[in-house]
C-alpha cells in the first residue's frame, strides 16, 4: 500500500504560531494540546528550568513577566540574549523559536503519528538575511533536517489560490500581523503564481493598535488621577505591561462588542495606595485611535500598486491575513481605499501555515522520515515535480541497474483511477527514459509505474508508484530584498534584485580602489555586502563583509586589481561569498556574517538630534526661499520623526523592539531627507550644468579641435538625458567630461592659468588646510601681478591639492575598498 506524502508548513508568528499538513488533496491544521490551531508564541522557563509553551505560558505573562517571553521573533537576528532570572538561563531568540517549533513538531506527531524531518517555515517578506538565518537556525535546533523558508504573503496567496475557483489575475495580499505589515502584489497566469512586488513595514501591526490604546489610557489616567506613567521609565514597566495586555484584550473584544472596559485592579501604587483602573471604552474611540495606523497601511498598498503601474481598481483579489485584519474598520478602510471587494471564506489566522504546507509540496519536501523500505523490483531513479501547474509534466528517470537480468526495456505510467495510461517509453542507451503524464486538475494524482522486459513480460519496478499534485504553484522562492556590494563611491553594485529566484549565484568583477601591501595588518580591503532597496549604500543594511588584510595576501595588491566577487544564495536565502583575486590566484571565503546591529538608545538619541538639526536647517532654508512644497514635505518628515521619538523613549525604558523600530525609522527619515536635499540641490545642479555647457562650448568652439567639438556635442546629449531623468550622479559625471573638454580647449588660451587660479581661489573656504591655502592665494596674486604664468600654474596646482576630496563619500559606503 502506498501512503500519500505529507507536507508540513509552519507559520512562526510574532504572536501566534500555527502548523498545517498537506497531503496533496487537503490541508489539515494541526491541533495543539489545548485543541486550538493557534499556539501563542510564548515561552516560559520556571525556576527549575521547566519549559512551558503556548497558551499555558500565556497565563504567566501577567503574573511572572520576567520569566515569560513573547514577541521574540522581533529580535531574531540581533544576537541579543534574553534572560530568565528564575532559572538563570539566557537564551537567544532563535533558541526560543526552536522551543516553539519543537512543541509544534510534537503536536504533529501526536496527530499524524510521525515526526516531521522536513518542513517549510514562513518568514515576513521584509526579513533581512540575518533574520532569515536565525529562523533557519531555530529549525535546525528544533531537530528539522531540512527546511525551506517562504515569505508569508506568498504562502497566503498560494493557500488562497489553491482554494479559489478562479485564480487568474492580480492578487493583493494584505497581511497585518502582530508587529509586521506585509503587502504583496502577485499575479497568476496559467496556474503559475508570480510575485510582482512587495512592500510593507517591519514595524506596523496589531501592537501599534495596542500601544495607541495604552497611550490614550495613560492620558486618561493622568487626567483623572494625576498619575503619570511613562514608557521611558523602567520603574513603570510592570504596570505598562499589564496595561498593554488589557488593551489588547479590549481591542479584540471590540471587534465584536460595541463597548467594553479596561479594568485592571491594582495596576500600580499611586500615592502609597494601589490604583485600580476602570476605564470604559467604545469602538468609535478605538477606531479613531487606530485609523491613522490603518491609513498608513493602505498608503503602503497604494504605493505598491503605483510602483507597478496598477490602478487601485485593477486588482482581482484582495486576501486579508493576520489577526488585526478581522477588525471591521480595517476591512472597511482597505476595501474602500483599494476600491475592490475582499476575498472571503479564508481564515486570516491560519492561511499562512496552509500556504506553507502547500509550498512544501511544490518544493518536494515530503516530511515523513525517509523510509529505507526496500521494495521488490528493479530500482529506478525518478525526477518529477511533486506539484505542478502543468497538466502534462514529464517524468524523467533512469534505471539503477540496467545490466541486471530481466531489466525492463519499456515503461509507462498508469493513473490511479485507471482512466488514463501513457504510451510505452523506450529505455535508451544511457538507461534513461522520459514518461508522459496526464494530471487531473486540483488534486493529488497517483501514477503506477508499469514496466515490461524485452520479451513483453511485465516487470516490477521500485518505487511502484508516484504522486503528483496538480494546482497553483510557485517554482523558486524569490528573494525578499535586493542584495549587493557597497562600493567605494557609496553606490551599490546590485547582485540580486528583489524577487530573483533562489538559489542564485552571480559574479562581478570589482576593482580595488587602493593598494593593499602584503604583510601589513593595517591595510585591509573591505567588501561590504548590503541589503536594501536604496541606491546609496549607507541607507541599506550591512549584512556581511569580506575583509582581506595585507597579512592574508601572497603578494601586494595594487589599486585597480581585479577581484572576482561571487555571491551565492541557497534556496533558504543563506548567503555565502567568495572573492577570487586572479592576479594572485587566491580565494577568500569567510564572510563575517553580521547580526542586525543592536540599537543602543544613546546612539539613537544622538542620531535623533542630528536628524532634527538637519530638518531644522532644511526648513530654515526652505523658508528663505519660500519653497512651500518643500515645507510641506518637511512637516511630513517631522511627523515621522515625532513618531520615532515615542519609540526612542520606549527604547530608553528598555524596550529592545522599540529601539529597533526607532533605528529603522531614523534610517528611513534620513533617506527622505537625502531625497529632499537632492530636490533642493537639483535646480542648482541643473543651473551648473547649463552654465558649464555654455562655458565649455564657447571655449571649444573658439579654441577646440574638430574631434573635441564632436565629443562635446555627444556629451551634451548625454547631459541632457541625465537632466531629463534627474539622475544626479550621471549628470555630475557628464559634467566632469564637459568641463574637462572646456578646460582642454581653454588651456590653449594665453590667460588660461589666471582663470583657473581665480576659480580655485574662490573655493578655498573648503580647503583642508586653510592657512596654507590662503598663503598660496597670496603668492598667486603676486605671480598674477608679475604676469608670471609658470609660477601661477604651480600655485594653482598646489591649491587644487588642498581642496576637499572624496574621502567622505567612501566612509559612507561602509568603507568599501572596491569599485
Amino acid at each position, binding site marked *: 500500500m502506498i501512503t500519500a506524502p505529507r507536507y508540513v508548513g509552519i507559520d512562526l508568528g510574532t504572536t501566534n504560531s500555527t502548523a498545517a499538513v498537506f497531503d496533496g488533496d487537503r490541508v489539515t491544521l494541526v491541533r495543539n494540546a489545548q485543541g486550538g490551531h493557534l499556539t501563542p508564541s510564548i515561552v516560559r522557563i520556571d525556576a527549575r528550568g521547566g519549559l512551558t509553551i503556548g497558551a499555558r505560558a500565556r497565563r504567566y505573562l501577567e503574573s511572572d513577566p520576567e520569566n515569560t517571553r513573547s514577541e521574540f521573533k522581533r529580535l531574531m537576528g540581533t544576537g541579543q540574549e534574553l534572560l530568565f532570572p528564575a532559572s538563570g538561563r539566557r537564551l537567544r531568540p532563535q533558541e526560543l523559536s526552536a522551543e516553539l517549533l519543537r512543541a509544534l513538531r510534537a503536536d504533529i506527531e501526536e496527530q499524524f503519528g510521525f515526526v516531521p524531518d522536513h518542513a517549510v517555515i514562513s518568514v515576513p517578506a521584509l526579513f533581512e538575511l540575518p533574520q532569515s538565518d536565525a529562523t533557519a537556525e531555530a529549525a535546525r535546533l528544533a531537530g528539522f533536517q531540512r527546511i525551506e523558508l517562504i515569505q508569508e504573503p506568498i504562502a497566503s496567496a498560494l493557500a488562497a489560490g489553491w482554494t479559489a475557483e478562479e485564480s487568474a489575475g492580480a492578487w493583493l495580499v494584505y497581511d497585518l500581523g502582530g508587529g509586521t505589515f506585509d503587502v504583496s502584489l502577485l499575479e497568476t497566469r496559467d496556474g503559475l503564481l508570480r510575485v510582482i512586488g512587495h512592500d510593507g513595514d517591519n514595524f506596523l501591526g496589531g501592537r501599534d493598535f495596542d500601544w495607541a490604546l495604552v497611550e490614550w489610557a495613560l492620558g486618561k489616567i493622568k487626567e483623572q488621577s494625576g498619575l503619570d506613567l511613562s514608557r521611558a521609565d523602567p520603574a513603570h514597566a510592570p504596570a505598562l505591561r499589564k496595561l498593554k495586555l488589557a488593551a489588547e484584550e479590549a481591542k479584540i473584544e471590540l471587534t465584536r462588542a460595541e463597548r467594553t472596559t479596561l479594568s485592571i485592579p491594582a495596576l500600580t501604587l499611586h500615592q502609597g495606595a494601589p490604583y485600580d483602573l476602570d476605564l470604559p471604552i467604545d469602538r468609535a474611540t478605538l477606531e479613531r485611535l487606530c485609523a491613522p495606523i490603518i491609513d498608513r497601511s493602505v498608503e503602503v498598498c497604494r504605493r505598491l500598486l503605483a510602483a507597478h503601474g496598477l490602478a487601485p481598481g485593477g486588482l482581482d483579489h484582495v486576501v486579508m491575513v493576520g489577526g488585526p485584519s478581522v477588525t471591521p474598520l480595517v476591512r472597511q478602510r482597505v476595501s474602500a481605499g483599494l476600491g475592490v471587494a475582499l476575498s472571503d471564506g479564508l481564515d486570516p489566522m491560519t492561511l499562512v501555515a496552509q500556504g506553507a504546507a502547500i509550498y512544501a509540496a511544490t518544493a518536494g519536501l515530503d516530511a515523513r522520515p525517509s523510509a529505507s523500505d526496500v521494495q521488490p523490483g528493479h530500482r529506478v531513479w525518478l525526477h518529477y515535480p511533486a506539484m505542478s501547474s502543468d497538466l502534462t509534466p514529464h517524468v524523467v*528517470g533512469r534505471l539503477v541497474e540496467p545490466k541486471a537480468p530481466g531489466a525492463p526495456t519499456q515503461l509507462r505510467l498508469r493513473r490511479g483511477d485507471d482512466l488514463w495510461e501513457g504510451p510505452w517509453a523506450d529505455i535508451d542507451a544511457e538507461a534513461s527514459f522520459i514518461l508522459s503524464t496526464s494530471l487531473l486538475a486540483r488534486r493529488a494524482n497517483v501514477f503506477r509505474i508499469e514496466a515490461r522486459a524485452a520479451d513483453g513480460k511485465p516487470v516490477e519496478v521500485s518505487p511502484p508508484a508516484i504522486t503528483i499534485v496538480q494546482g497553483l504553484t510557485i*517554482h523558486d522562492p524569490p528573494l525578499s530584498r535586493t542584495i549587493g556590494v557597497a562600493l567605494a563611491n557609496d553606490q551599490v553594485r546590485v547582485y540580486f534584485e528583489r524577487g530573483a529566484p533562489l538559489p542564485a549565484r552571480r559574479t562581478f568583477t570589482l576593482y580595488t580602489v587602493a593598494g593593499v601591501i602584503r604583510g601589513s595588518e593595517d591595510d585591509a580591503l573591505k567588501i561590504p555586502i548590503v541589503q536594501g532597496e536604496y541606491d546609496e549604500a549607507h541607507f541599506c543594511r550591512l549584512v556581511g563583509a569580506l575583509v582581506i588584510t595585507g597579512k592574508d595576501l601572497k603578494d601586494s595588491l595594487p589599486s585597480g586589481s581585479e577581484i572576482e566577487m561571487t555571491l551565492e544564495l541557497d534556496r533558504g536565502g543563506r548567503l555565502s561569498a567568495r572573492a577570487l583575486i586572479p592576479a594572485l590566484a587566491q580565494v577568500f571565503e569567510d564572510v563575517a556574517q553580521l547580526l542586525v546591529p543592536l540599537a543602543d538608545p544613546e546612539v539613537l538619541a544622538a542620531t535623533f538630534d542630528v536628524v532634527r538639526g538637519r530638518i531644522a536647517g532644511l526648513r530654515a532654508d526652505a523658508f528663505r526661499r519660500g519653497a512651500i512644497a518643500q515645507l510641506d514635505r518637511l512637516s511630513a518628515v517631522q511627523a515621522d520623526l515625532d513618531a520615532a521619538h515615542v519609540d526612542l523613549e520606549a527604547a530608553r525604558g528598555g524596550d529592545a523592539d522599540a529601539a529597533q523600530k526607532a533605528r529603522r525609522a531614523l534610517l528611513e527619515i534620513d533617506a527622505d531627507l537625502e531625497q529632499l536635499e537632492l530636490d533642493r540641490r537639483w535646480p542648482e545642479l541643473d543651473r551648473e550644468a547649463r552654465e558649464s555647457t555654455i562655458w565649455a562650448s564657447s571655449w571649444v568652439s573658439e579654441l577646440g579641435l574638430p574631434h573635441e567639438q564632436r565629443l562635446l556635442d555627444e556629451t551634451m546629449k548625454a547631459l541632457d538625458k541625465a537632466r531629463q531623468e534627474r539622475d544626479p550622479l550621471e549628470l555630475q559625471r557628464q559634467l566632469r567630461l564637459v568641463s574637462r573638454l572646456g578646460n582642454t580647449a581653454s588651456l590653449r588660451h594665453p590667460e588660461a592659468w589666471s582663470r583657473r587660479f581665480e576659480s580655485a581661489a574662490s573655493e578655498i573656504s573648503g580647503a583642508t588646510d586653510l592657512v596654507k591655502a590662503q598663503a598660496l592665494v597670496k603668492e598667486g596674486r603676486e605671480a598674477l601681478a608679475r604676469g608670471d604664468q609658470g609660477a601661477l600654474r604651480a600655485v594653482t596646482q598646489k591649491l587644487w591639492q588642498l581642496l576637499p576630496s572624496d574621502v567622505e563619500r567612501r566612509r559612507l559606503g561602509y568603507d568599501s575598498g572596491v569599485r
Partner: protein
Amino acid sequence: MSTSPHQAIQPFYVLGLAPAATRAELEREAQKLLGMLELGLSSAASYATPLGPRQRTPELIRQAIAELRIPERRLLHELWAALPAPAPQPQPQPAADPSPGAPYRDHPAAPPPPHTPQTAPAPEAAPTFPGAFELFAWRRP
C-alpha cells in the same frame, strides 16, 4: 560587467526552444531538463548557441526560466533569440569552452588554447622556442 555575451546564455537557447513556445512548454521543458541533469543524462549536458555548444547547468536553466516568466524580459529575449540556434549535431566548431564567458576571456599573453596547434598550424607560422629559458638556466615560468 558580466562577462558572458548575451548570445551565449540566451534563455531560449538554454531551454532549446523557439521564441514562439508557450509558457507551459517552457515550464515543462525546464522541469524536464532539470530532471535530466539531476540524473546525469548526457543528452541534456549541453545546448547549442550561435557561438557553439555550451555547458548546461541547473543554475542556467533556473535563471532562464525565471527570466522568461517575466513578460517584458521574455520580450527582450525573443529579440535575441530571433536567430535560431544551429542544429546541435554536425558542429566542427570550436570545442565547447566550459566557462560560459569564453569568447571574452582571451588573455593575449596566455599560451594559445590547446586546440590551435594541432588543428590550425598556419603554414608560415614562426617557430616558438620553449626551451629558451633553459638556455639561460632559468626555470620555465
